[in-house]
C-alpha cells in the first residue's frame, strides 16, 4: 500500500480518537477550574470544587446508593452469569443455540421498554418502586454481558487440570473449589467488574425504577443538569472517571504483575 494512503488513514484514526477523548479531557481539566462557573474560560487552578463536592450531602448519598447497588448487582449477575456460562461452555445439549439467544435477548430489548415492562408488571403485583426493583432490574440488564464475558474467558480453561484432580481422588465439589474456581477467578472478576460498571452507569432504566427520593449518581447528575453544568459536576465527573477507569486499569496491571512474578 502506498505510504500516502496509509498516512491518511493514520491521521483519520488519530482525529477519531481525538473526537472520542477531547470532550472527556475537557471535563477533567475543568474540574480544577477555580471559576465559579462550570465552563470556560479557565481562571485558575483550584481544588475548591472537590471540597464543595465532599460537602454535598445529596451527592454523597447518591454515591453510596450507586456503590451498594453496583456491588449487589455484581454479586447477583455474576453468580447467575457464571452458572449459565458454565452450562454453555462445559456441556453440549439440545437447544443450546436457542438458549444462548434467550440469554442475550435482554440486550436487544430497548432499555426504555424493558424498564416500562418491569415497572408495569410490578404495578400489577402492587409492589411499589424500591431499591429491590432497581437491584433486580440492573441485574437482568447486566446478565447478558456477564454471560458473554465469562463465557469467552471460560473457553480458555483447559479441562485437563480438573480431570487430573478427579483421577487423583478429589470429588466433584473438591475439584470445583480447589481447581476450577481458582482458574475461573479472572473470569469471575471480569464479569463482576463489568456488572458493577453497567449498574453504576445506568440511567435510562433507573429513572423509571427508582423510588421517589432515591438518587443514584447518574440520576443525581441528570437532576442537577436542568439549568447548566455546575463546576461540582465536573469535579464529580473527575472522581467517577478515576474510579471506573482507574480501578479496572489497576486491577489489570496488578494481575499482569502478579502473573509475571508467579511464573
Amino acid at each position, binding site marked *: 500500500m502506498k505510504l500516502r494512503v496509509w498516512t491518511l*488513514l*493514520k491521521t483519520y*484514526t488519530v482525529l*477519531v*480518537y481525538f473526537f*472520542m477523548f477531547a*470532550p*472527556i479531557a*475537557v*471535563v477533567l481539566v*475543568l474540574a480544577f477550574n477555580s471559576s465559579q462557573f*462550570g465552563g*470556560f474560560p479557565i481562571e485558575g487552578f483550584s481544588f475548591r470544587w472537590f471540597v464543595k463536592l465532599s460537602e454535598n450531602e445529596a451527592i454523597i448519598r447518591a454515591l453510596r446508593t450507586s456503590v451498594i447497588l453496583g456491588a449487589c448487582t455484581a454479586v447477583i449477575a455474576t453468580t*447467575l452469569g457464571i452458572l449459565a456460562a458454565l*452450562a454453555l461452555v*462445559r*456441556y453440549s*445439549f439440545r437447544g443450546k443455540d436457542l*438458549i444462548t439467544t*434467550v*440469554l*442475550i435477548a435482554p*440486550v436487544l*430489548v*430497548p432499555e*426504555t*421498554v*424493558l424498564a*416500562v*415492562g*418491569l*415497572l*408495569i*408488571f410490578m*404495578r400489577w403485583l402492587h409492589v411499589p418502586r424500591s431499591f429491590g426493583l432497581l437491584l*433486580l432490574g440492573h441485574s*437482568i440488564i447486566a*446478565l447478558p454481558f456477564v454471560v*458473554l*464475558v465469562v*463465557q469467552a474467558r471460560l473457553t480458555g480453561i483447559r479441562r485437563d487440570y480438573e480431570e487430573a484432580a*478427579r483421577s487423583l481422588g478429589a470429588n466433584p465439589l473438591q475439584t*470445583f473449589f480447589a481447581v476450577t474456581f481458582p482458574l475461573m477467578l479472572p473470569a469471575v472478576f471480569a464479569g463482576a467488574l463489568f456488572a458493577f*460498571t453497567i449498574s453504576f*452507569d445506568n*440511567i*435510562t432504566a433507573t*429513572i*423509571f425504577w427508582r423510588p421517589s427520593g432515591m438518587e443514584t449518581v*447518574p440520576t443525581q*447528575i*441528570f437532576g442537577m443538569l436542568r439549568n*447548566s*453544568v455546575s463546576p461540582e*459536576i465536573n469535579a464529580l*465527573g473527575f472522581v*467517577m*472517571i478515576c474510579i*471506573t477507569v482507574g480501578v*479496572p486499569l489497576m486491577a489489570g496491571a496488578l494481575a499482569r504483575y502478579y502473573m509475571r512474578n508467579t511464573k
Partner: protein
Amino acid sequence: MPSNDQSIDKRPWLLLSPSLVAITLLVVIPMAFILVYSFYENLDLAVDKVAFQFGNWSEVATDGYYHTAIWKTLRLSVIVTVLAAVLGYIPAYFIAMTKFRDKWLLLLLLILPFWISFIIRTLSWIHIFGNQGALNGLFQMLGLTDAPLSLMYNEFTVIVGFIHVFLPYMILNIYVSLEGIDGNLEPAARTLGATPWQAFREVTLPLSLPGLAAGCLLVFVLTGGSYVTPLILGGPSDFLFGNLIYDAIVTELNWPMGATLSFTLLLLLGLVVVVYSRLMGLNQLSKAFK
C-alpha cells in the same frame, strides 16, 4: 467434571435455570404485561381501569404527533448509524492492519469509553458547544463574535452526542471481523493483478460486512431506544419516541398510553432485529467479547 456427551443430562439445565427463571420473570412476562396494559383505560393521573379497548392503539395509529416521533426516531437512528459507520470503519481498519508495536494501546483506548460514565460523556459536549463552551471561548478570543453564539440544544448536538457514545461499539465490531480475515487474502489478490483499492473492495470489505452489520444494528437499536441524550443535548423539538414514553409514564402518569407506546417501540426495533438475524444470524454480536 465428568463426561458431557449424554443427550439427557440435567446438569446444564440446573446451571441455566436461575438465569432462565430471572429472564422469564423480569423480561418475558413483563413484555406480555405491556401488551395487556395497552388495552387498559386511563381515567386520571396514575389511575387506570382494567379494560379491553383499543382507544390507546387508535390514538397511536391516528395522531400525527406519534407519527412525527416515529419518523424522527427512524431518521435520527439512520443518520447516527451511517455516520458512525463512516467514522468508525477507517479506525477499525487501521487498528486491524497496523504493524504498530503499541496496537494494544489503541485497543485499550477503544475500550476505555465503555468504562466512562455515559452521562458524563454526554454532558461533556455542553463544554464544547455551550455558551461557556470551548468553541465559543475560542471564537471570542479570536474576536469573531462578542456575544456567545448559540450552538447547543439542536439536532446536531444530539447527533454528535449519540455518535460519541456509540462509536466504540461500531469500531469494536468492525475491528473484530477485520481481525478475523486471513492476512494472505489481500496480498493474493494483489499478486493476481488487483490494485490496492480493488483488493480492498473485492476481498476485505465484503469479508468485514458481518462486523459492520453487527455494529450498525447495535447503534441503530441503541439510538432508537434512547430518550436521555435528547433531554440533555437537544432542544424542545428534538425528541425521540423514547421521550414520549418517558413523558407518558414519568410526567403524565398515563400508564396505559406508556404501555402502548412501549409496545410500539418494541415492535419497530424488534422488526429491525428480526430482519438482521434472518440475514446475518445473532452470533456475530457476541464476537466482540472474545
